[in-house]
């Protein structure tokens, strides 16, 4: 139970590009309002996972309640919502934002607006937020606050004349931020007497408490002991605990309208807690859920295989543990002739994929081979049936396919003018369609429609490399469209290697096929026989490389005394061979798979 009247509550999020200072500002706000003592503070308090801290990205939404005595003499309850900061989690971001009334838009005064900032600002505007621009790092010599202020007005269309100028690092003008929150953001509204309506913002698994759910109460009250119902899934649970984060978990009797806090209810897995769902009172339910619920759907898939086949069980257990805490991540068992037993895994996007892979490697000490990421294709058969295919191995024979649709994205790229040419070339090479091209000062903003398939193939790395790291990129899904797609098989001495096959647009098939054959030529060591590496569409070979045989390998001296040793050596080699992955009598080392699968055109 809180004593703060609803008009003294402010719920806000922070929108910022990676490295523009979101976490540092959050740390300063926590420190300044005394939510944590100096002794308890450590950098990036809200990012609890190592990977979040290291990569400067937030994976799980978090919240902290700050108590602030404002200049008007009143004490305000400020709820800071730390939102996941990447496009892959766009839906999760939108739900976090829906729990707030306003946002701080933090822009690095020496860098300016980036594509990711832009996308999140649009999400905030869609959520009806009041937005307070904050220029950070104004203490840096390279800071150009006036230009960045102009840029914000020009690109985003926000009035930046009253932007708060700060340095989160040095603590300069944190007070100004707090005052802006109090004076410029609206208080939440809600009816405490109405049936309970609370937005499920996020959830995570805690080994002691079970699933912890982060909620924003819109109407009614959420109490301990109350039986609640999830309106999308219909599941009912008895609330064991409610409380707020300070950022430590502090139990309270209830949460009222406008408040953000947590509940626990002996829930076993986060998969039962859909982000965006509405919680209501089971006995006195609301008639309508809150708007905007959307189940999460993976858009990128890849196979994950243990390098050491003995690690399969460990991989299975590790995936199950990750899934406990990340319902947006999907996995199903699959086998590959090349790689053995593994899992086909679905992700919200490329970053999500990367994060899961990295966590498996780091937190669970697994050595993994990942197959090339694939998007989800809609394959329409000649008999009228449609199926979704995200594994090249599942692609039906060309003769039964009527047409294939592939997913497209709308990408926004911000880049300094001098690199624009290279970026446009890259987008055009990737079948991009230009939607818009505008200038903001010396930065260009290109909006393109691109097939997602082209983006999962190292687009991001290429973008960074052709712009020397200056381009920023963000995207949203933008529907499906018919496409002339083909499955390219890679054959080693005539044997298809399933893990290396991929789907590409016909126009790119030959160059990709040539690229992967070339790469394999460098990766597969010379062996007894010369090796033909081919890329083929159906029965038609589109690229070919030959790896010559090893030059010489014969014992110089072999007489009567050597025969036993020699035979035993051969017998031992034979045993070793049985454990190797062979294709057409060719041994492909793990390292070759790893490197070949990393590549892209």
């Amino acid at each position: 139970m809180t004593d703060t009247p609803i008009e003294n509550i402010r719920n806000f999020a922070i929108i910022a590009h990676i490295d523009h200072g979101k976490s540092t500002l959050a740390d300063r706000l926590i420190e300044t309002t005394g939510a944590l003592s100096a002794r308890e503070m450590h950098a990036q308090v809200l990012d609890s996972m190592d990977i979040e801290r290291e990569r400067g990205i937030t994976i799980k939404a978090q919240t902290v309640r700050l108590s602030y005595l404002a200049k008007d003499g009143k004490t305000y309850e400020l709820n800071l919502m730390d939102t996941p900061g990447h496009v892959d989690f766009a839906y999760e971001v939108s739900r976090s934002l829906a729990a707030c009334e306003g946002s701080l838009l933090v822009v690095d005064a020496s860098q300016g607006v980036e594509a990711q900032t832009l996308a999140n600002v649009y999400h905030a505007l869609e959520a009806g937020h009041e937005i307070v621009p904050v220029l950070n790092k104004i203490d840096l010599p390279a800071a150009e606050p006036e230009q960045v202020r102009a840029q914000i007005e020009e690109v985003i269309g926000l009035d930046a004349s009253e932007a708060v100028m700060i340095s989160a690092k040095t603590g300069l003008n944190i007070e100004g931020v707090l005052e802006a929150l109090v004076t410029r953001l609206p208080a939440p509204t809600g009816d405490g007497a109405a049936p309970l309506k609370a937005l499920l913002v996020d959830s995570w698994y805690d080994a002691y408490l079970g699933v912890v759910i982060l909620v924003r109460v819109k109407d009614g009250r959420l109490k301990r002991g109350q039986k609640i119902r999830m309106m999308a899934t219909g599941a009912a649970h008895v609330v064991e605990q409610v409380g707020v984060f300070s950022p430590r978990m502090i139990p309270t009797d209830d949460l009222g309208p406008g408040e953000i806090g947590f509940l626990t209810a002996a829930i076993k897995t986060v998969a039962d807690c859909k982000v965006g769902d509405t919680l209501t009172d089971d006995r006195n339910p609301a008639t309508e859920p809150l708007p905007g619920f959307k189940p999460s759907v993976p858009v990128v898939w890849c196979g994950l295989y243990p390098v050491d086949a003995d690690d399969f069980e460990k991989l299975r257990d590790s995936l199950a543990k990750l899934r406990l805490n990340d319902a947006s991540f999907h996995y199903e068992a699959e086998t590959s002739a090349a790689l053995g037993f593994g899992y086909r895994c679905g992700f919200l996007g490329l970053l999500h994929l990367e994060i899961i892979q990295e966590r498996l490697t780091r937190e669970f000490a697994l050595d993994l081979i990942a197959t090339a990421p694939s998007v989800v294709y809609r394959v329409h058969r000649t008999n009228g049936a449609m199926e979704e295919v995200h594994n090249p191995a599942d692609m039906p024979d060309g003769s039964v396919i009527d047409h294939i649709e592939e997913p497209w994205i709308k990408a926004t790229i911000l880049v300094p003018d001098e690199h624009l040419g290279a970026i446009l070339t890259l987008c055009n090479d990737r079948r991009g369609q230009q939607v818009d091209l505008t200038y903001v000062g010396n930065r260009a903003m290109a909006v393109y429609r691109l097939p997602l398939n082209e983006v999962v193939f190292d687009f991001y790395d290429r973008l960074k490399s052709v712009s020397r790291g200056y381009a920023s990129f963000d995207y949203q899904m933008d529907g499906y469209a018919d496409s002339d797609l083909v499955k390219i098989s890679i054959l080693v001495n005539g044997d298809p290697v399933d893990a290396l096959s991929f789907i590409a647009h016909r126009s790119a098939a030959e160059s990709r096929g040539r690229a992967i054959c070339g790469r394999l030529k460098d990766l597969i060591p010379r062996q007894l026989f010369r090796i033909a590496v081919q890329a083929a569409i159906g029965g038609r070979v589109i690229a070919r490389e030959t790896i010559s045989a090893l030059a010489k390998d014969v014992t110089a001296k072999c007489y009567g005394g050597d025969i036993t040793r020699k035979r035993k050596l051969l017998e031992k080699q034979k045993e070793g061979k049985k454990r190797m992955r062979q294709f057409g009598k060719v041994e492909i080392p793990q390292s070759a798979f790893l490197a070949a699968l990393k590549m892209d055109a």
Partner: protein
Amino acid sequence: MEPLALYIHWPFCLAKCPYCDFNSHVREGGVDEGRFTAALVREMAFEAGRVGRRPLGSIFFGGGTPSLLSPAAVGRLIGEATRRFDPVAGIEITLEANPTSVEAGRLAGFRAAGVNRLSLGVQSLDDAALAFLGRRHSAAEARSALATARTIFPRVSFDLIYARPGQSEAAWRAELAQALAFGPDHLSLYQLTIEPGTGFAARAARGELRLPEAEAQAALYQATGEAAAAFGLRPYEVSNYARAGAESRHNLAYWRYADYAGIGPGAHGRLTRGGETRAVRRVRAPEAWAARVEAEGGAIAEESALSPAERGREMLLMGLRLAEGVEEARFSARTGITLEAALEADVLAIALAQGYLERAGGVLRALPEGRLRLDSLLAALLV
């Protein structure tokens, strides 16, 4: 019955060469020749008792350095062998010798003792290379020993080691041309390899020694074959070159997987009786070997019957080293299995298609391209 090949091992050297991983030992205080010769004689009698009387096709004194033996001791051993077995007409009796002046002085004695083929460990005709290889003779001594040997023995062969670190193809061609100018009818030309436990292995581990890359080795091998062929020597085995009829009969017994008996420290044998082939290995350490012989008559460290599959692998790993290949009928007779049962069919098919192997007229042989990669080929090919 096929004639037997008899190997006699003399395990002592004056110094250990850094490339050599043979069972050789240096005894600073000198070697009791009488004791070890007596033990060899005794073990030969012991072995003859087990094997039974057989035609004897060849005797080979190897080492170590058997040229450190006195001619009298060599004569005694030859005498014992020819009494215990039935020497065939024209029996080949080879002795390995180092071309130092001391040993060269004994050559006439060895000939008188019955040795009719000398194998000289020349190794190089370049003084710097000889020093690198840890040899105790000079190029001049080698030339002189060769010249002397040719006047004494009806058959002389010598060894050279090439593909040494930094050796260019031109330098090797020049050295080989000098060797061929002696007009030998048999040469053993070995590419240098670094064997575990040798002085070179230690140097290689420290990064002080690096062999030429496989491509360069292949080119040197090719050049060697061409130069030898120009002098009428054909590569009848991976590293052995001879005029027709001048092949080492003793070594051919190994490669053809015929029966051979080995006596002396660490010697190996393959002996067939009643359709069963047994592998025999003798005690390796010289003194321990001698003590065992003195106590029990023979010093067998290990003896086991070989399965048909094992025999098949051994016969192929030896036989495919030979230009003549492996005769299928003989293969079945010696191993008890067919060639098909011993080979991976799919590898055989690729090897035939890629010109590594040839199968014609009831013979399977490795062609030059296959012999060049024989170790890898065998690893894939043998079941």
